[in-house]
């Protein structure tokens, strides 16, 4: 294929994914479109010859995060077909995933952010700051995995350990938060038995 093929493919996937994602009413559909976005980004990494990064992305994001999100959807009420919320007056909201005001607000804010980002993208004269030298030619024939491993193991070992600790902490927190309230029910039962 022409050189620009995979970047375009990746971008196309990502863009398709996000556009479907933003305007779908079904939350499960949104999760799958998210998966598509992840695949697209993984492809983008691959096109940059970042093997480790792409694999990590696909495995962790695609295999882990999306699954967790699906579990979350399942455990919190499932897929309400309309995924509309009911307002205070207990009326179904209009389509567009909520009310019109919210969508309009979101559009405004996202466009502001987009505008700012694109502005800063084009205003920054990075080409003059640093030479543009893509790493197309690998001088030392090292794989990315090896390089990153060496960095993590030798120079940035602390952050590596710390991040493992962080993960541990996150798991414990998650378990603690989501623990069902069994003990109160037991105590209530005991109280009822006493009385």
């Amino acid at each position: 294929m022409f050189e620009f093929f995979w970047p375009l493919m990746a971008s196309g996937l990502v863009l398709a994914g996000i556009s479907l994602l933003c305007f779908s009413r079904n939350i499960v559909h949104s999760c799958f479109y998210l998966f598509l976005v992840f695949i697209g980004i993984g492809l983008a990494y691959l096109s940059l010859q970042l093997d480790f990064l792409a694999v990590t992305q696909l495995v962790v994001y695609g295999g882990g995060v999306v699954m967790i999100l699906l579990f979350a959807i399942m455990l919190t009420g499932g897929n309400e077909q309309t995924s509309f919320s009911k307002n205070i007056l207990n009326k179904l909201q209009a389509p567009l995933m909520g009310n019109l005001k919210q969508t309009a607000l979101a559009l405004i804010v996202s466009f502001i952010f987009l505008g700012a980002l694109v502005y800063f993208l084009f205003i920054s004269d990075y080409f003059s700051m640093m030479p543009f030298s893509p790493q197309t030619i690998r001088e030392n024939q090292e794989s990315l995995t090896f390089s990153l491993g060496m960095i993590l193991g030798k120079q940035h070992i602390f952050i590596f350990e710390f991040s493992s600790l962080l993960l541990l902490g996150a798991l414990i927190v998650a378990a603690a938060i989501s623990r069902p309230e069994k003990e109160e029910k037991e105590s209530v039962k005991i109280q009822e038995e006493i009385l």
Partner: protein
Amino acid sequence: MMEKTLLLYQLLSCFLFAAGIFLIFARNHLIALFIGLELLLNASALSFATYTYAFSLPKEGYLFPIFIIVIAAAEAAVALAIAIRFYQNKESSHVADATVLQG
């Protein structure tokens, strides 16, 4: 060519970011918010990786997307826990029902 790729990926990351923001502000479902959050993180990771590749910056530049992914995974677990807890309290998974702070 490479400049174009770089530009393309940067723009892509911007769009991803904007989409994430849109999702956060527009959707009512809790998980939808989290999806938006994932998009944000991915946008920034992509941007990092692209710049590191384009300018042959030190290899630590590739560490950052790794860590973003790691943190996002952990965060997903915590988000699950929060969503379950929120559902247990409010019997609903819509953010609009979290009105305790309203006033």
